């Protein structure tokens, strides 16, 4: 549980805050609000009811606060009381925070008002109390009786933070030239005030610059397993041993907030309710998801009938057989297990392939407040470490969860010891795709070749070696060990979306902001590194002689060589001897069509082949029972399209597709075939456009239009 919070922001809204200084495009107030809005919206985004925020305006035109009977507390007004901030509050504050017409109002008095408010709100309960004052330090300030106020702040455990526009900060490197004497005096006063009560004091520029550094949400460690690390079976063998341990996540992916689906409120509803509130943007209504269920029924129209949810049983597919499971047996397919962490055996660290890690990682530490367990586990960790072994174990985190095989690696680091645990793949998790070796070529006859255009020659290898050496990164930890810059890399999507949401909440009409540079710091190599390795890269590029393939020749060429079997046998010659292949047989349409094209000696043969295939496709549609033939039709069309792109005859395809479309839509091919048209749209086999084939006269828009029209 996060601690309860009470934070008051005192914002100087005096007339002078409306000025632009030192060439900035924003006023002092706008500048200050960049900081304040970021802080407030960060609090709002947590959605916590116990994070209370209040905003006080200093040097406001009006006076409204709890101590307003005293004259020194004039021109201080409460814009929002301590409480959870919600969207309407943000809108109210946005409208209320404007430069005033006065410069009167005492900053120290505002702090006193804030202290009073916090005390009334929090009483003696446990709270994180904080007051933030943002000002440009040009207003009147009365330092009388400050010792007493400071004592109160310290005594109440309030954290004070004072930020000022153009306040001098030698450490950060801000010094305002020609500073007004009055302001200099104020700065002095505020600094001494803050320092006197253990508060912080700083210049606004620094605070705003820091906003770009993503803030990381700390998560309290919660054990995901408590149980025994066991060696042996204590039920059966007296030599079994167990150490009480706990498991905590070491890495756990922080996900960006998820968006839900909405649609604009329909006009009809708005009218019913009279004039809808002119809130920002369109009014939205949630999207409701409904599920209906269908089963195949050849006798029904469309081949499917709806069934009631209540008539359905839970089940699984075993191949294409449906296996239903009655409610009593609901868990019948579940493997019964008990929570455990059982050692299976040990493996050599050098023989472990790091890429076998397939999950996030956890740590295993001894049960807390158990000295003996701590001692025992420590001896285990050290023994693994000294022997250069990892342990392999079977882990079940909770009763009846699926068992996992995990790796346990010793970790001894800067006084902290634990086992790092990560899941290992099961045999079903490994897919054996085969790839040829990278350092040699094995020919069909089994000969091994080491010089080949796909293998680097010595020059290229040397150039690569030099380049890699020149691009060595120099990240080191305090002890001089090589490390990866994990601590400085932030999840780009997470922070981008979070900050966009916060910004949009306050500035609904502004466009979204660019991504801050810190998020993409590692998108490119360091400039210095690139400069230093440039000559090695040039050398590598020239030795590598890599050529980009122009987009057009990516497909097969028109005058391609016919493919031959491994022996190199001329099958075409055999085909020519086959007399019956003058006409394409519907049973063997695709191969015969391709072969006819590849043997075509004139354009008429191509036209003829296309015509034959088109007739076959149309008759497949006509004779299709429901969607039975649709996949074959798709294959035929796709093949036709690919081949005609290759043979640079896009018009033949486009003409056929146009006529096919009209026949489908006019139900000339055996009734309602709209589902086929929908399938065709989805499969991206529309008209061949100019981008796909430069012989085509169809533009991209035209092709798109053709598909979308129905």
């Amino acid at each position, binding site marked *: 549980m996060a601690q309860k919070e009470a934070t008051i922001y005192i914002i100087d809204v005096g007339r002078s805050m409306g000025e632009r200084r030192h060439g900035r495009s924003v006023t002092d107030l706008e500048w200050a609000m960049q900081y304040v809005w970021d802080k407030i919206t960060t609090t709002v985004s947590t959605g916590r009811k116990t994070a209370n925020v209040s905003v006080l305006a200093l040097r406001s035109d009006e006076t409204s606060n709890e101590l307003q009977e005293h004259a020194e507390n004039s021109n201080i007004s409460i814009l929002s009381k301590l409480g959870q901030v919600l969207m309407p509050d943000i809108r109210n504050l946005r409208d209320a925070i404007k430069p005033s017409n006065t410069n009167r109002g005492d900053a120290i008095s505002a702090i006193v008002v804030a202290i009073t408010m916090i005390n009334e709100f929090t009483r003696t309960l446990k709270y994180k109390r904080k007051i933030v004052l943002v000002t440009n330090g040009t207003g009147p300030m009365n330092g009388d009786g400050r010792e007493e106020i400071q004592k109160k702040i310290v005594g109440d455990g309030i954290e004070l933070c004072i930020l000022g526009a153009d306040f001098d900060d030698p450490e950060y490197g801000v010094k305002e030239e020609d500073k007004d004497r009055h302001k200099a005096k104020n700065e002095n006063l505020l600094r001494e005030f803050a320092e006197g009560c253990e508060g912080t004091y700083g210049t606004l520029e620094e605070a705003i610059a820091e906003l770009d550094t993503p803030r990381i949400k700390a998560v309290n460690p919660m054990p995901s397993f408590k149980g025994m690390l066991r060696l042996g079976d204590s039920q059966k063998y007296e030599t079994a041993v167990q150490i009480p341990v706990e498991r905590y996540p070491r890495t*756990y992916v922080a996900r960006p907030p998820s968006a839900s689906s909405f649609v604009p409120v329909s006009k009809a509803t708005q009218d019913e309710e009279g004039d809808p509130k002119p809130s920002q943007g369109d009014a939205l209504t949630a999207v409701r998801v409904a599920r209906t269920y269908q089963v195949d029924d050849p006798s029904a129209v469309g081949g499917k009938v709806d069934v009631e949810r209540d008539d359905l049983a839970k089940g699984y597919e075993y191949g294409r057989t449906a296996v239903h499971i009655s409610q009593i047996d609901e868990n019948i397919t579940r493997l019964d297990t008990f929570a455990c962490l059982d050692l299976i055996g040990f*493996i050599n660290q050098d023989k472990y392939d790091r890429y076998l890690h397939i999950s996030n990682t956890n740590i295993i530490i001894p049960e807390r407040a158990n000295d003996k367990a701590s*001692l025992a586990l420590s001896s285990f960790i050290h023994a693994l470490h000294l022997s250069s072994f990892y342990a392999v174990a079977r882990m079940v985190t909770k009763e009846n969860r699926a068992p996992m095989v995990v790796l346990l690696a010793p970790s001894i680091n800067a006084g902290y010891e634990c086992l790092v645990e990560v899941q290992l793949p099961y045999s079903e998790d490994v897919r054996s795709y085969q790839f040829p070796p990278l350092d040699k070529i094995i020919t069909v006859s089994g000969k091994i070749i080491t010089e080949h255009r796909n293998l680097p020659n010595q020059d290229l*290898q040397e150039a690569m070696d030099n380049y890699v050496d020149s691009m060595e990164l120099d990240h080191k930890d305090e002890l001089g060990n090589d490390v990866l810059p994990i601590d400085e890399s932030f999840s780009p999507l997470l922070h981008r979306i979070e900050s966009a949401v916060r910004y949009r909440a306050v500035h609904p009409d502004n466009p979204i902001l660019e991504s801050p540079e810190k998020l993409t710091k590692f998108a490119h190599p360091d400039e210095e590194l690139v400069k230093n390795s440039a000559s090695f890269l040039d050398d590598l590029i020239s030795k590598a002689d890599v050529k980009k393939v122009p987009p057009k020749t990516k497909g097969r060429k028109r005058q391609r060589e016919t493919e031959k079997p491994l*022996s190199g046998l001329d099958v075409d010659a055999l085909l020519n001897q086959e007399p019956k292949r003058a006409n394409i047989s519907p049973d063997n349409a695709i191969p015969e069509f391709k072969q006819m094209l590849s043997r075509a000696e004139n354009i008429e043969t191509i036209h003829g082949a296309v015509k034959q295939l088109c007739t076959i496709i149309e008759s497949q549609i006509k004779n299709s029972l429901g969607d039975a033939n649709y996949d074959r039709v798709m294959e035929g069309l796709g093949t036709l399209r690919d081949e005609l792109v290759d043979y640079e005859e896009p018009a033949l395809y486009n003409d056929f597709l146009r006529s096919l479309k009209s026949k489908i839509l006019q139900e000339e091919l055996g009734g309602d075939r709209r589902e086929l048209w929908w399938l065709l749209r989805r499969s991206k086999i529309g008209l061949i456009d100019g981008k796909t084939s430069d012989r085509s006269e169809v533009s991209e828009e035209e092709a798109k239009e053709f598909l979308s029209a129905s």
Partner: protein
Amino acid sequence: MADDNYARDEEDFDEEEVDETSYRSVKDAILFAIDISSSMLTPRPSNDAKKPTEVSPASAAIRCAYHLMQQRIISNPHDMIGVLLYGTESSKFYDEDGKSRDDLSYPHCHLFTDLDVPSADEVKALRALADDEEEARKILKPSEERVSMANVLFCANQIFTSKAPNFLSRRLFIVTDEDNPHAESKSLRSASCVRAKDLYDLGVTINLFPISRPDHEFDTSRFYDDIIYKTAPSDGEAPAYLQPDTNTATAKGDGISLLNSLLSSINSRSVPRRSLFTNVPLELGPDFRISVNGYLLLKKQEPARSCYVWLGGETPQIAKGITTQSADDTGHVVEKSDIRKAYKFGGEQVTFTTEEQQALRNFGDPIIRIIGFKPLSALPIWANVKHPSFIYPSEEDYIGSARVFSALHQKLLKDQKLALVWFIPRKNATPCLAAMVAGEERVDENGVQKVPPGMWVIPLPFADDLRQNPEYARHAPADELVDAMRNVIGQLELPKKVYDAQKYPNPSLQWHYRILQALALDEDVPETPEDKTIPKFRQIDKRAGDYVMTWSELVDENAKRMFGGTAATKSTLVKRGPKDQAGDSGDPPSKRVKLESGTANLDDDVKRSFERGAVAKLTMPILKEFLTAHGRATAGKKADLVDRVEQFFEEKI
């Protein structure tokens, strides 16, 4: 929290292997064509004296098909498989559905399992055939007359054309020991070549699984080199220079080793190679790119989700769910294009237009960009969040990619370095920082590749993904303690000191499908699951027992010395075995030390309470601790916990 299958849905979205460019459906169909000749049916005795089994090549092939069928039901539930026996006396094609086509007949081709997603009955039938039951003997009868290979190939053609139209991957697995079926007839041979070309043009790949005869080595050049082509045209993702693997070791030897090598070689090609991303640039430096393809070689296999079954018809049917989205206020169905995404914020919704939403997620085009190199040792063992991607060069966008990739691969292997990369695997994918590590090729004892050579891209955690290590009181162990534990570890190495995933099938996944199979086939549900992940307790006791006891005593001694009587110890470290409880004489040395601290005898206390029927009198903390120590759930009311404790002891009796 910390659900180990977290965010499965989100991941699925990122990880699905799709073919973005093709009109074909991303499915695979395998048709086994198994030669049923008398030599294929001759059993080959096994030399193993312990298991005198006889396996014929044909039955080995059928077993492989059965094995693959079972495996694919789990791993590729939507892919098809079929079994065609050829050279049989009987002939069977699509005859039952009444659609007999007289002009097409395939003598001596027996379509045993039609090409489809297998049904439970088909699994059963194939198993019966594999087990060589009576019925099977009738089918497995070679014909007198030689079967025409042209006919076999065209039969396969027709099966693929009608049953698996538009599939991205269609493969014909031929298992035979005849390397020259038409030695005597040139015309039959030519006809076969033509039919093989048809299959090639249809996009069907032929994979040959040759079996050598005891007296004759299979020679592909005699016939099959005219039949088999390089990669099929539809397999556009295969590297251009990928040689067909006809050089796969031919299966030979006695029955068992023949079966094993055939299994191994079929397994290695059981999954069609599908890429995760294609032709993504690998940028080595500014203005220097090559292209690579990415594959998922490691991915957690989950059981298929449950579905709804309609029981109203003759046979149970899967009901297809159809989702409709409607507006909450009017109930009208909404179009996808109207839907806007909104984030909850301050009690309301903050919205973005679709374009803005896309802009927020866009961090540039797909790329693997090297930003520098580091020694491999810089990659911490804990720095991991998910499975890696495997990459291999592609010549399609950049000619010369292969040689540059190879040079980088060799350099990283030689110097034990990794490349730090900025990784955007596909359009609109979330970028991440990743470690690119070179992996060496590994082959198994049959010479079949187990791990391909290439690079592994391991996504690293961001600073946001790191969790704080909780503090605890640490106690440095004395050297004698560490040494005693090293002795234990030294006794319990896994074979070859490596983790071999192939030895550990996922027990819950296998059990899930084992039960489903039993239910589907109406068989008895098996009682005990096979679970290879359960440690070999007997071996542990035998090999390391004495060392464990030594270590355990030392722990007790050290703890006593270090912490005295004040040691915070909740549970016993060393457990009593059943012998202790039976009150055997000759106390093992451990017994003495175990009786140290007050609460240490939790198990005994609880057991005594159980025997007196007084478990309910124990306090909640004791019940919870006891249950936790035995891996039982601790949720629920006291009565539930008491039940569970009693159940625990009852099970043991």
